[in-house]
């Protein structure tokens, strides 16, 4: 299964949830936001939301800016 994470192609052998993806990539689960195909998926749904082949995922956090 191919998923694009922050513009980068990634292959996964099996079904994966958003939470599973964050854990696999060793990303923080706090202070981030996730969107799938342009839609923000609230944190409360990260453990139940299964990603599909071809999904485009954005994982963002707060950084310095003016």
């Amino acid at each position, binding site marked *: 299964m191919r998923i694009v994470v*922050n513009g980068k192609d990634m292959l996964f052998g099996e079904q994966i949830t958003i939470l599973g993806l964050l854990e696999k990539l060793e*990303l923080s689960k706090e*202070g981030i936001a996730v969107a799938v195909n342009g839609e923000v998926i609230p944190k409360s749904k990260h453990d139940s939301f299964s990603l599909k082949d071809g999904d485009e995922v954005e*994982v963002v956090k*707060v950084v310095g*800016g*003016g």
Partner: protein
Amino acid sequence: MEDYLEIAGRRFSSRLMIGSGKFKSFQQNKEVLEASGAEIITVAVRRVNITDKDKENLLDYIDPKIYQILPNTAGCYSAKEAINTAMLAREATGINWIKLEVIGDQKTLLPDMEQTLEAAKILIKEGFVVLPYIFDDPIYAKKFEDIGCAAVMPLAAPIGSGLGLQNPYNIIFIREAVSIPVIVDAGIGSAADIPPVMELGVDAILTNTALAEAKDPIMMAKAMKHATIAGRLSYLAGRMPRRTYAVPSSPLKGVPYKN
């Protein structure tokens, strides 16, 4: 006399707002924030680096319980991009305030007002407190007020230019056109640029690059804190009229040796 800034029902005693971009470290940013006396600080939202993870988080240094965090949509070039970014910012921070920026051109970073207005309408419907970065255009400023924006943020000069206030008359027109707070954003080059803007009666100033690129950002933050207060007090005090010719300050009568 009690003098405070009120945005969307929240009161602030400082009229200086700062950005958090381009500082050497989060620690320096924190010290600048403290020295400036600012209570509102802007932040950006960016992709997490999935290969090179930095463990440090800006919000570990700046406590959202103490400071009003103002996420921005910097880097967006359409209403759609800005709306998506605002949604991500709200999810990441739990804060529904947004400094709405929709840029129209990479070279000048001037705002695309049509797209900004469109994005503002939708974000307000979605429950955001919207503070749009706008051109110094009083007609558009009124439109943003009419749709329910919490403030308008006209530029003094292009972002990061440090040119200082370029068109005081347009800022005066904006001040007269709207009753929501007017926050002059972008273009401040140093503390000296602030009082002439505050003297026009605007509600607040937002600056970032002038702090980050100062030789001593913490000292500049202190200077800007005082400059903002000086400008505000000077506005409230009311300046004397401008005259073409001199008027003596000492009595004309009784000058020694003069009959």
